[in-house]
């Protein structure tokens, strides 16, 4: 699955939240999106998973303009892990994961053994099998996030959008989730706060600031001290990670901390 975003602009009250953003992700590529809070990361992802409609530009999946697809067709191609799923209603973990089957089911379709197998497998892959019957709201933040990942897996798409997928997770599960996603061999676009995780997992990284793409390329090309300084306003030292050889960032404030 290939994603192409061309010249996408999205405005709120004449302010360009996204300003002619162009970005792409190749088949099986893990692409990271970094940038400070309010830079437009989430807005861009929303345009891609169709929660927002861009004011200008084109977004296509495998060459097909998503604006021409039904929402349901999009959901069969794109699965999304959002930061948090608010709901005032109680659901069991398994019911949440079953929701991932929604775009594949017609009005009269019942759950098949195939669906049940997919759901069980998705839960297993995130290590939540024994939580299947639990009330979603009794879970910890990290457990919830894994359930939401399982729901995205149950959607069985070739393209995955992740908005801060490692929020609320301890380091074991941060790495666990990203290892899992990487192992799926599907096209992935992930907004990541943790630049070191981005450096470790992304094939390519786009840096976005004030609605514009300001740098793109392999992690070592993008994650440079000058760029970090210009978009985050802090100092950074970049070293190769002694174990993986990937760039590793050490941050410091100008006040000597």
């Amino acid at each position, binding site marked *: 699955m290939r994603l192409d975003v061309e010249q996408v602009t999205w405005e709120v009250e004449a302010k360009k939240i996204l300003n002619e953003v162009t970005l792409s992700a190749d088949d099986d590529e893990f692409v990271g999106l970094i940038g400070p809070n309010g830079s437009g990361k989430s807005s861009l992802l929303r345009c891609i998973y169709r*929660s927002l409609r861009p004011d200008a530009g084109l977004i296509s999946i495998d060459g097909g303009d998503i604006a021409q697809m039904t929402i349901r067709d*999009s959901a069969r191609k794109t699965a999304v892990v959002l930061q948090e799923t608010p709901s005032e209603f109680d659901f069991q973990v398994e019911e949440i994961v079953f929701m991932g089957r929604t775009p594949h*089911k017609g*009005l*009269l379709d019942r759950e098949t053994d195939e669906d049940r197998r997919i759901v069980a497998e998705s839960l297993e892959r995130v290590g939540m099998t024994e939580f299947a019957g639990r009330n979603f709201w009794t879970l910890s933040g990290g457990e919830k996030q894994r359930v939401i990942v399982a729901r995205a897996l149950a959607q069985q798409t070739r393209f995955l959008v992740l908005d801060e997928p490692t929020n609320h997770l301890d380091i074991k599960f941060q790495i666990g989730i990203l290892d899992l996603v990487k192992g799926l061999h599907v096209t992935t676009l992930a907004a990541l706060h943790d630049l070191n995780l981005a450096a470790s997992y992304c094939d390519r990284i786009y840096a976005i600031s004030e609605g514009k793409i300001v740098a793109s390329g392999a992690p070592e090309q993008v994650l440079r001290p000058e760029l970090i300084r210009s978009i985050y306003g802090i100092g950074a030292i970049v070293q190769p990670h002694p174990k993986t050889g990937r760039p590793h960032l050490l941050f410091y404030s100008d006040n000597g901390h």
Partner: protein
Amino acid sequence: MLVIALLASMTAAVTIGPVAINPVVVWKIIGAHVLAIDGGDWSNAHDNIVWLIRLPRVLLAGVIGASLSVVGAAMQATVRNPVADPYILGLSSGASVGAVLVILFGLNVFGLYSLSIAAFLGALGAFAIVFMLAQHRGRLTPVRLILVGVAASYVFSSVTSFLIFRAQESRQVQAVLFWLAGSVAGAEWGFLTIPAVVLAMGTGFLMLQARAMNGLIAGEETAVTLGINTSRFRKQLMAVASLLTGVIVAVAGSIGFVGLLMPHAVRLFVGSDHRRLLPVAMLAGAIFLIWVDVIARIVVQPQELPIGVITAIVGGPVFLLLMRKHSQAFGGGRT
């Protein structure tokens, strides 16, 4: 099991009244009418009481209870808010205006059905107003819907209050108050067909959309990522729920409580998945209202209480007890 409970409740409800009737006789009478057999070992009086008075009333209570409960669940999903009920969009207040106009000014253009038709038109009018005002660039968001609905409710209620205030005869005021509290006392076979058909069709539609309703209450963005066109779907849900509510209010006034809390009571047992919630809520709502109506009939004999007065008195404590027992539900397990 609920189906059996429903049939048993219906039978029992028909036997209870100023004249007690043996349940076997009840079924014989029903059987005779359904199969068009003449005569039997029961009196004409019993036949009339069962077939013309009590059975239509019990059936109507069941249909109304079922509809309220299903619409309540649908409305809660539509606006993604647990405190929504069938009346949240101002439909019952709109209907009240229509009904009160008929009662106070005797606008009997449609004969026997004037009251119901006026109430239905009032509900439709409220629906149209809320539907148009709540839209913003063709989109309906839950918060706007609720706020516009509540605001419209207050406006219509004020109009109703004003009309009552201006009413001349206390007998009319009494009639209006009775109607406002809701009742199935006027039940006869002629009032049953439309509500039953609308209930069947509305519930059928909602059942088909149960999976999408699950997605909708999981969150606005989540629903989109699951392939649900939230704006269009919400409009459909709103239209269906409003049609059902309009019919309910037209034949039974605005019976409170059932549509708000019955879906929650059912969620305690079967969870939030609408594929289980809707059918169970339908049956439970029917059983509940049938029994509430029995109480309304017998508690201050020979007078009758409006059914809407009893629903909350009986249902409220029961619901609170249930909620205490299921302490994990409704965010009890949340941190």
